[in-house]
């Protein structure tokens, strides 16, 4: 297929061109035309990605490399920038590009009239470029480079309205929390490259080429055999990188704050695409991860804990966007739980497929929900606090319908997409719980999964009913012009809504996604059947949760400070005090230590060296005639001294 090379390069390059064009427009102070290059380039990119997907799995062995250029060559060390195409990456690529094209179209009207209109689209395109390159990387180091790239675009977009102190703070927090995790990631990469070099695979292969995924997978069994502790350590470090980007406990704190960015950005970066990069990394490295079951069980537990605590926190948020943000954290926890099920023998491929399936459906319905929240915000004059508005179904009838579809999919009501994919996740965990060795752990995780599903349905329906039903209430800030969104905003949402309804039933029960992803090299075909009781049970749980949510939305929250419910609510709305704990236990001690070092540097080190430097003066006080205070004189004396020492050395006889 000669065209596939061109298509593959067009996917990242088109957004890059769009980014440059928008950046130039931005310097011109443009506020009108920047969406044109952005939307055109993103649509082109999406078309190419879908074409690649439609062409089927590339290459004879399920993988194709598309050459780029030589980035580094040091001695024998080379690193090429080239692309790797296989079924796994094409799946994610199609989702990323098509959703970003939809959201770019939506942004045209949403960002209309903003001072940074062109800047917005420039960074938006830059993000899509980095994200597609990340997905297409053939080498772990190249993936890391674009991993940082998406993080930076995320930073710039969270801080898009930099005039707001809260946005500036949130951007910094997001970057730094990610940086902590990325540090572990980088260390893992350096160690892995080193470890691969210790094996036969690594002999004669240069430093960076060792990080090619193929080489990693070839070498991993050897490393596992010889230095299993080392491999566990490496996988653990890489996993920390993954959970940082995907906002899993204990790194989840940055994502809810990231909602300070424009809402389309929250939909794209902080719900549908970037935050799934961690899941993609784990899936990408699954042939290596499968060798370290302990890392996978850790991931499963972290995912389980995250999904549960984030669901609890979502229950007690009043800010609609934050409910969705915590929901994202919680759903990503689901994905990691599914991946963790790969710890059980022969389940890795099924686990990856389940995670990727939920990733795809989640991208559609969560993007839809965020954009609906954006419509609400737009109509309410930037108010997003659910206590200040209500009963909006008459004002925003179309948004109401779209939000309803997204909410039903998130809650897992059949036959929407969320139902099937969530079931896939629970199914793979249920299968893992049959294992004789670690089955009990997954039994517990399955219980967590069901509880989370129940909580998800509760908070989703609560947010839906509070926002759109009940007595109509419109905040002052909205003025008299609370109105439905424009057609340009609603059209892409309708596309997403179709996806939120149909993708699940189209890909899941038909086994399309299973058959497609198992064409990826090293992911041999695996049979997987969901038990019927699971389907019925999760449908019942979703329905029950929605009912409870409806009841809760009617009730005024208890104001009695002594009651247990209020205390739990306090705990939940204060994010379980985890952010506070980080501040007290990590940030403040570090700042205190930094201040101590600063004091130490100015007073002790400089003091001692200053004292030494002052010695000549004190000696000089004895012979003050030498102490003329003139720099030339000092220099002269120095020269004399040097000469004296030199003569001393030269005349030493035992040289």
């Amino acid at each position, binding site marked *: 297929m000669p065209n596939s090379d061109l298509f593959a390069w067009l996917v990242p390059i088109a957004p890059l061109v769009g980014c440059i064009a928008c950046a130039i427009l931005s310097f011109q102070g443009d506020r009108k035309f920047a969406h044109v290059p952005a939307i055109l380039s993103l649509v082109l990119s999406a078309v190419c990605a879908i074409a690649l997907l439609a062409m089927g799995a590339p290459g004879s062995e399920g993988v194709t490399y598309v050459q780029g*250029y*030589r*980035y*580094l*060559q*040091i*001695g024998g*060390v080379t690193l090429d920038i080239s692309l790797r195409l296989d079924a796994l990456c094409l799946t994610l690529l199609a989702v990323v590009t098509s959703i970003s094209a939809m959201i770019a179209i939506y942004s045209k009207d949403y960002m209309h009239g903003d001072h940074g209109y062109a800047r917005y689209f420039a960074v938006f395109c830059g993000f899509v470029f980095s994200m597609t390159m990340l997905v297409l990387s053939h080498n772990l*180091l190249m993936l890391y*480079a674009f991993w*940082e*790239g998406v993080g*930076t675009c995320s930073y710039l977009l969270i*801080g898009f309205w*930099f*005039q707001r*102190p809260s*946005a*500036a*703070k949130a*951007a*910094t927090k997001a*970057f*730094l929390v990610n*940086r902590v995790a990325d*540090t572990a990631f*980088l*260390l893992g990469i*350096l160690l892995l*490259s*080193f*470890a691969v*070099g*210790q094996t036969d695979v690594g002999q004669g292969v240069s*430093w960076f080429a060792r990080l090619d995924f193929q080489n990693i997978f070839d070498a991993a069994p050897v490393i596992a055999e010889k230095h299993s502790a*080392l491999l566990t350590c490496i996988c653990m470090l890489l996993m920390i990188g993954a959970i940082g980007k995907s906002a899993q406990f204990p790194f989840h704190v940055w994502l809810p704050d990231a909602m300070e960015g424009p809402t389309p950005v929250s939909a794209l970066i902080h719900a549908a695409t970037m935050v799934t990069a961690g899941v993609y990394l784990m899936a990408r490295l699954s042939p290596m991860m499968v060798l370290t079951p302990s890392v996978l069980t850790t991931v499963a537990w972290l995912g389980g804990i995250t999904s549960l605590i984030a669901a609890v926190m979502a229950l007690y948020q009043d800010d609609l966007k934050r409910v969705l943000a915590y929901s994202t954290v919680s759903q990503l926890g689901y994905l990691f739980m599914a991946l963790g099920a790969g710890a059980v023998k022969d389940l890795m491929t099924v686990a990856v497929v389940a995670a990727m399936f939920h990733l795809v459906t989640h991208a559609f319905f969560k993007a839809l929900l965020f954009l609906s929240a954006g419509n609400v915000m737009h109509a309410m004059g930037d108010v997003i606090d659910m206590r200040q508005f209500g009963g909006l179904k008459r004002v925003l009838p179309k948004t109401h319908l779209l939000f309803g579809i997204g909410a039903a999919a998130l809650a897992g009501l059949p036959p929407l997409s969320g139902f099937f994919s969530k079931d896939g996740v629970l199914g793979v965990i249920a299968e893992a719980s049959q294992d004789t060795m670690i089955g009990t752990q997954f039994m517990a995780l399955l219980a967590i999964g069901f509880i989370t599903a129940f909580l998800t349905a509760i908070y989703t329906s609560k947010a839906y009913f509070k926002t759109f039903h009940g007595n109509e209430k419109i905040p002052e800030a909205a003025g008299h012009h609370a109105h439905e969104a424009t057609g340009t905003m609603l059209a892409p949402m309708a596309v997403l809504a179709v996806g939120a309804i149909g993708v699940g039933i189209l890909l899941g029960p038909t086994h399309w996604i299973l058959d497609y992803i198992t064409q990826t090299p090293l992911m041999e075909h695996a049979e997987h059947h969901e038990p019927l009781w699971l389907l019925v049970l999760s449908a019942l749980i979703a329905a029950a949760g929605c009912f409870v949510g409806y009841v809760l939305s009617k009730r005024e929250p208890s104001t009695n400070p002594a009651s247990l419910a209020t205390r739990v609510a306090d705990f939940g709305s204060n994010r379980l005090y985890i952010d506070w704990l980080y501040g007290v236990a990590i940030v403040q001690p*570090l*700042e205190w*230590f*930094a201040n*101590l*070092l*600063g*004091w130490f*540097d100015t007073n002790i*080190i*400089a003091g001692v*060296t*200053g004292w030494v*430097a002052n010695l000549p003066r004190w000696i000089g006080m004895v012979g003050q005639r030498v102490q003329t205070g003139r*720099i030339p004189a*000092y*220099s002269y004396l*120095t020269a004399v001294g*040097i000469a004296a*020492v*030199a003569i001393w*050395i*030269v005349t030493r006889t035992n*040289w």
Partner: protein
Amino acid sequence: MNYLLPSLILVPLAASVVILLLGNNRGKAMVPVGVVASIITLLLSIALVFQVHNAPAAEGSGTIAPKILFEPQALSIALPISVAKQPIQWQLILGADGISALLVLLTGIIGCFTIVLATKQIESRTSQYIALMLASISMLMGVFVSMDLVSFYVFFEAVLIPLILLINGWGNGENPLSASRKFLLFTLAGSIPMVIGLIALAMAPAASGHPSTISFMELSKLAAETPIHGSNWVVWLLLLGFGIKLAILPLHTWLPTTYAAAHPNTTSLIASVVAKLGLYGIIRIVIPLTSHSLITEAQLLIGALGAIAIVYGALVALSKSNLREVLAYSSLSHVGFITLGLMSLNSEGLSGATLQMFNHGLITASMFWILAMLEQRRGTVSLATENQGLAGQYPKLAVLLVFFTLAGAGLPGLNGFVGELLAMSGMMRVSGTIVTIAVLGTVLGAWYALRIVQRVLFGGNGNGQNHGHHHGHHHLETATALDLRPLEWLPLVVVAFLCLYIGVLPQRSMKLFQADTDRISKVTEPAVKAAHPNTDQLVSK
């Protein structure tokens, strides 16, 4: 015989002399002469890079083999000292290999832009300032193209004279007089051990029965042939001397004081080029000429000091509120990566460190230029006030500051990433512990860098009260409201494109010096393996 090399030294020097002699003290009449001279110097340095790049691979078995040379027979003088009854003949040798060319280019770029920006920045005695700048540039060029011990030492020390005058005469921070005195005392204290070390190096061949020489090429040939010569104390003396210059950890206190006192425009030259002299000395003299004792004695210690400097500098930068001091400690922290790369003594580490010398020079100079522009508009830039929101008022300046902050934080796709990554992967082969410390420093590095952006640029619309103090800027009020003028943003944009170019296509830039660092690592790499059996072995045997 290549006349480009002496003209790199003579053009700025001549211009400097002309301005000092003909210009009057107050007027700006001679400013154009200085600007033109600096542009010519920049063009000459670019020409040098092309010549070195296109010259055929140098011959010679030594670890130092310049591709182009300038050895005038007329400049050959018998020195009044003799070793083992052999007189030492001084022959001026100028030469350039890839490493020299890269640093010459750095000097050319930073020198030229500093002078161009000085025309807007320096309000009093502008032509004198420019003349002294040109003199410093001339001496710096001399250091980078010297290929014998004597001229190296002469230029190395001569740089101090114009610098002291610049720090003291135009310093607008806290007590520039005492800062310049501290700078002088520290660097002179470093010179004494260094010169003893250099003399010992000159005498080493005679001690082992070879004809005496002071040429780098000859010395490096001997060092490569007979790896064990000279005593170990020589390496310590040299490291002490160069260490003070590069502000290695406990000997760094001159750096923050100087950077805080000098005019930021002056500091940009000091931080980006003068601070590289120590590093250059290490890669030019210590590593090729005393590699054996370096490996057995000091390699891991200095490497560890580099890694500690990364963390220490970043932490102290976090605690400071004056942006000058923050940038000073940030510079200290970033130089740690270069030290780390140099001390890995292998191909990746040495080439990464060399590239990073250039990268750090570009980034740190740009940061100080931006600081100078900010100070010109707002007075002292303090981080004590949150949410100053200057980005709204100075959008161009803000974009550039964010760009260079990200480049400094090692964002992939920009130049800092490649150099730091190579330095770390080089050190990984020698010591995982040192790398772990260094990697931790990257988090702290991002922290203080984003703190600058968050506090100074973000969080408001920039109309808030200025909480800083004004330091003798009489024309402050007129320029307060303006964003960058073309003459101000143009140099920064040029540097930004250079950063982007190196970040996206590092392969092209590294070709310039790859052969030269490989020449060194070919000798040192096996020696390191022999001295440290755990090298390249992750799991110790």
